[in-house]
């Protein structure tokens, strides 16, 4: 399943809406979308995952890069709209308390 990604900017905030499965095959697409933001002047990155039903460790690793960015620049990297199954993966990985998760 391919990934569909839409990015919107509002001032110093960027919102990335992801649709599809985030796997070792598709996570490079998400990474390519996130990378430019890490070197831009945005202060908040929100990743909207309402329409992501499956995410493997490569997807999580991509999001960990966002976590690294937020620590480096004192920005906010927010995950939003996690499905039941994706939230479960974050809990299994013990990352649900490390990421800022809303919704």
């Amino acid at each position, binding site marked *: 399943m391919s990934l569909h990604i839409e990015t919107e900017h509002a001032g110093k905030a960027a919102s990335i809406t992801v649709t599809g499965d985030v796997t*070792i*095959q598709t996570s490079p697409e998400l990474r390519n979308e996130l990378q430019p933001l890490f070197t831009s002047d945005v202060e908040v990155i929100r990743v909207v995952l309402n329409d992501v039903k499956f995410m*493997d460790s490569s997807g999580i690793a991509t999001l*960990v890069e966002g976590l*690294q960015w937020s620590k480096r620049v004192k920005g906010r990297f927010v995950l939003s709209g996690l499905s039941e199954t994706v939230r479960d*993966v974050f809990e*299994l*990985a*013990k990352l649900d308390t490390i990421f800022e998760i809303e919704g």
Partner: protein
Amino acid sequence: MTGCKEGLQALQHLADQACKGVCLNAIQINRIALALDELFANIHAHGYANQGGDIDCSAKWTGQEGKPCLLEIKLRDYAPAIQDIKTCKGVDPETLKDHPVAGGLGMHLIYAITETFEHTPLEDGNQWRLVFNLKEEDEKT
């Protein structure tokens, strides 16, 4: 099955189909698919160095009335045998809070999901045995 990206898609589809109709909930199905996805991806990337190779897969239900319902899945690859599985433990999530690193979570997820995860080095490859305790998972979810 071929250990390549297309093979991974086929494996995910197989797991999805196998789980349908046996009254597993969405989280149980996702966990089984995830564990297989992670192991398959590791074999493809590390065992076969992204060049592809054969992976045999078999599955069986075990357990009796009143006992846990166990799903045993075996994968067998023909990649160079790994002698010490401890070298493949992956990252410790406890350390991620202060030192977030990308990568190394796959093996941790497999251990977290499975009741039993065993590796046997063979003369011409590796055998991987994963056991899922679905009754216990059902109680968790």
